[in-house]
């Protein structure tokens, strides 16, 4: 039996029975596959998964996340990554291989409250995720405005092949960095563009479930264009 239809499910709902492979946010109990969160269930090939509609960010290796420095030890920084886990940024990552815990002061490079674009380097659920900034486009964020949206709405904000975010960037001349953890940094030369981009992103967050969202956003951005 193949049931490709998407369904809204709540925790405890039996999605299907049969020889399926349980993936994200489902558990296998006997031959029943049961949802563990509120979301939309999807069945394709032999895989069953639930896309969550709510909830905190669960780290995944290679995700780009925006973190906020909360504190540091002599060897690493602790980052708030909008998750139930704390992100760890080792000092070697910033100071290089010749880092010395005696000679180098961590707060000279990144201090409490700084925002950092990072990538999840390693994570296995039993330990807090390790993050890195040694890659292109990663590192301290010096300017812009932080907007917080629900992590489950991030794919909607990006859109198919980045269509949604490209549209917002084009219309407002803003540069938008989207963290998979739902933290988004907008930087823009003009304050109007910044406000418009912020409004658009907040609109995506609120109306992620609406079918003709793209048209609504387009309309909102264009109406504003005519006004200004």
């Amino acid at each position, binding site marked *: 039996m193949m049931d490709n239809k998407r369904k809204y499910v709540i925790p405890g709902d039996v999605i299907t029975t049969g020889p399926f492979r349980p993936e994200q946010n489902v558990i296998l109990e006997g031959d029943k596959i049961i949802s563990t969160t509120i979301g939309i269930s999807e069945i394709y090939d032999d895989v069953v998964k639930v896309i969550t509609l709510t909830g905190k960010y669960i780290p995944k290796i290679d995700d780009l996340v925006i973190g*906020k*420095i*909360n*504190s540091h030890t002599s060897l690493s920084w*602790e980052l*708030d990554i909008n998750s139930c886990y*704390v992100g760890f940024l080792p000092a070697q990552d910033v100071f290089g291989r010749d880092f010395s815990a005696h000679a180098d002061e961590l707060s000279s490079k990144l*201090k*409490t*409250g*700084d*925002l950092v674009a990072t990538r999840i380097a390693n994570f296995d659920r039993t330990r807090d995720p390790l993050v890195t900034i040694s890659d292109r486009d990663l590192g301290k*964020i010096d*300017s*812009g*405005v*932080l907007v917080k949206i629900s992590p489950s709405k991030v794919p909607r904000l990006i859109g198919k092949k980045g269509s949604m975010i490209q549209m917002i960037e084009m219309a407002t001349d803003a540069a938008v960095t989207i963290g998979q953890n739902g933290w988004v*940094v907008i930087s823009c030369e003009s304050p109007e563009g910044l406000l418009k981009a912020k409004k658009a992103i907040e609109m995506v967050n609120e109306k992620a479930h609406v079918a003709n969202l793209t048209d609504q956003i387009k309309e909102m951005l264009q109406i504003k264009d005519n006004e200004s």
Partner: protein
Amino acid sequence: MTSVSVIDELKKIQILELLEQGKRIDGRAFDEPRKLVIETNAIPHANGSARVRLGDTEVICGVKIQPDRPFPDTGDKGLFICTAELLPLSHPTVETGPPQPHVIELARVVDRGIRESHMVDVSQLVIEKDKSVIGVFADNVVVDYDGNLFDACSYASTAALLTSKTPKWNWVDDKPQLVEGGETALPISTIPVSITMGRIGNHIIVDPNGDEWDSMDARITITTDSDGNICALQKGGSDGFTQDQINQCGEISVRAGAKIREILKEAQKGSQ
């Protein structure tokens, strides 16, 4: 997890930049408090109660009035004690357990503001001198946190006290005996209003919200009574104020306090 909230640098810079342009992050004027909504008699079984919303900060205060033993040195005066507590649901950083220093400070500042204004005339709350007096306990619970708990708790306590009904006790057989139907209003002599101001850079702002609270250099809470006299003051934060700034804060507290006092009076009238 850490238990202190850390504001991100970008927002801090943005707040300061806006202040330089004469604007605040939520669009208010520098000396404008957030919208104050007071709902009295929020807890039907309490002797007095109020639910106060100051912007997104929300506090519930309940007043309990009962006979108590007086302190040995003040046998001719009733008791007034004000407490405060933060619920873990009020903010992600709040944890259960013994109160943190800033919560202890909160309770003390609110208590002092009301006590030193002599709002409740405790000399009228005596059942039998040196033996039994009436105790008034105002307990504040913070339900939602978005900065400036000092003022929110102070308004909640004041509103709850203004609308409290105290039962009557007689001294019979060496113990207080409740008189049925003898409820009267508390002996109130003035309405204290606390105004908390923060300093960010060289700017003084009234009633800082959560983000402003996290980026403040220093803060000052000034309580004034109905006559516009300053009766309590608390300075906090790691930095200081200049003398001119202190004077400015004093003036603001009287001016802004008068407006808040009208809202408190309205709330009192509305409950009668």
